[in-house]
Structures are given as C-alpha cells and as structure tokens.
C-alpha cells in the first residue's frame, strides 16, 4: 500500500512539472464557456459575419437552459475526448521509452499498482478539470438564460464524469500495449467515434455501451428519461476493471 501511495505522489509531481494541472482545467473551462456565449450571441454573430442578404428577417428560437447545457456536453463529446486522449496518451509509453518503467519494476511494486496509480492520478485531474468547466458553463447558463435545478446538473455531471474516467482508463490501457504515441491517439479517437456512431445507429442493440453514458447525461438534463442508464453504468465499471487488469498484464509482458 505504501508503494502505491508513493507512485500516486510521483504521478502528481510529474503532472505538476509538465504543467498539466494548470492547462487541462483551463482548456476545459474555455471549451465549455464558449458554448453558452455563442448560443446567446448567435444572432449578433450571424449579423457580423455577414452572408445574410439585406433586409432578411432572422427568427432565432431561444434555446432553453437545459438545451444549452446539453450542447455543452455534446461539444465535449468531440473536442473534450480529443483533449483527454492527447493529455493522457503518453503516460506509460513514454516511461517505457526512457527506461524509467523498467527501473520502477525492479522495485517491490506490482504492475497493477503502477497502472492503478496512473489511472487514479490522471483520472482525478481529468475529472476535476471537467467539473470546473461544467460548473463554470452552468454559471454562465444561469446568467444568460434561466436557472436549472441543481440536482439535474449534478446528476448529468456525475454520469459524464464516469464517462471521462472510462476514456482515461481506455487510453492508459492502449498506452500499455502500444509504443507509439500517434498510434495510441488515433486508435482511441477512432474507437470512441466508431462506438458513438454505432450507438446512435443500433441504439437498441448497444443501449448499454459506455459511449451511451454521454447521451444519458444529456437526457437527464432534457427529459429525465433513465432508460438503460443503470445497465450502462454497470457495463462501464466492469469494463474499466477488466481494462485495468489487462493493462497491468500488458505492462508485465512487455517488460524489456
């Protein structure tokens, strides 16, 4: 157990050195902030951007506050996934390249402890960044549109946090089996985009897939339907545990 705590501390120190603790929350906050702002000023932006014929009358429906928050989440589905993948991709593969992984494995720590400590450290940074951004966009939505019951926001935030954690676990697992950072990024981005497209095509067949969590998070905001939510959460947690153990095995086997 002491080895595990030391490893977690080492991971946090590494994140502070690479300034990840600073830039990841800021990037998330900026990404989520722009959504309520652009939706609120959409009419003015369209007018300034030109392209509208003289005298055209624009009737923009004002989106409800729930729809604004849902659109924040759908923006995170594309850009946020990309940022998480890029931020986490090099955790294991870089250590293997510069030899520090081999050094750590000579110490009395198991590979599961190594993978677990990385997951805990990176996952907590990513989830806290997401929560910062989400709460900030909630604040803006309340100012610009109208208030939403905080309970709904919290529910969707928890569901989406689990989804963020799942992305982190996936990226760390692929970081353990692949060596090139580019390959890790491409594999993960393809995996998540294919899974979410498949989820929208075969919604009944894949209703328990982890990518459906983001849809569930949006649904809790808009119409509070929780069809298939428990199944999704269970499947995601089971997959996360399996990927953790598989990642630990991969670290053991690829010991150079």
């Amino acid at each position, binding site marked *: 157990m002491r080895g595990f705590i030391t490893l977690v501390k080492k991971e946090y120190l590494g994140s502070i*050195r*690479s*300034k*990840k603790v*600073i*830039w990841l929350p*800021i*990037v998330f*906050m*900026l*990404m989520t*902030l*722009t959504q309520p*702002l652009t939706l609120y*000023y959409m009419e*003015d932006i369209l007018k300034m951007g030109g392209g509208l014929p003289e005298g055209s009358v624009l009737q923009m429906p004002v989106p409800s506050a729930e729809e604004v928050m849902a659109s924040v989440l759908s923006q995170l589905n594309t850009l946020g996934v990309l*940022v998480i993948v*890029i*931020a986490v991709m*090099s955790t294991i593969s*870089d250590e293997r*390249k*510069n030899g520090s992984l081999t050094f750590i494995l000579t110490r009395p720590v198991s590979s599961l402890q190594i993978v677990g400590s990385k997951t805990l450290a990176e996952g907590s940074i990513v989830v806290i960044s997401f929560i910062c951004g989400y709460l*900030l966009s909630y604040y*803006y939505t309340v*100012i*610009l549109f109208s208030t939403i019951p905080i309970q709904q926001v919290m529910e969707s935030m928890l569901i989406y946090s689990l989804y963020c954690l799942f992305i982190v676990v996936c990226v760390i697992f692929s970081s353990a089996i692949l060596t090139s950072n580019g390959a890790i990024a491409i594999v993960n981005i393809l995996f998540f985009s294919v899974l979410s497209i498949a989820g929208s095509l075969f919604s009944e067949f894949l209703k328990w897939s982890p990518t459906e969590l983001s849809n569930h998070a949006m649904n809790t905001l808009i119409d509070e339907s929780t069809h298939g939510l428990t199944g999704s959460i269970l499947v995601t947690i089971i997959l996360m545990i399996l990927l953790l153990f598989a990642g630990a095995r991969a670290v053991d086997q690829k010991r150079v």
Partner: protein
Amino acid sequence: MDNTLLIQLLVPVIILQLILVVTALVSLKNTAYTNGPKWLWVLIILFFNLIGPIVFFIFGKRGRRT
C-alpha cells in the same frame, strides 16, 4: 447589444486565456531543449488561440517527453 454585459462576460475568458499563454511562455523559457526553434514556439503560443499552448505543452519539449 448590451456592451457592459458583454464585457463582464468576456473578462473571465480573457483572464483564463492570459493564464494559459503566460504559463506556456514561462514553461518555454525554462525549457532547455525544444522541438524546433524557440522563437517559432513563441509565435505559435501567441497567435494560435487555445490550440497553440496545448500543442506546445504536448509536443514542444524534448528530452523528458520524447
């Protein structure tokens, strides 16, 4: 358009952007070896909004991160 409201809303965005750019520049100054010339990174960080600093933090440093 209500201008005072707009300014009040934009101030946090500008502050966040500034923190990001300043952190990236300080980190660049303290890095001994970068991928590519340093003056190019200064331009990238300053002129590519949001994407520039991220790209620097991930691909800019050589040595510790390969």
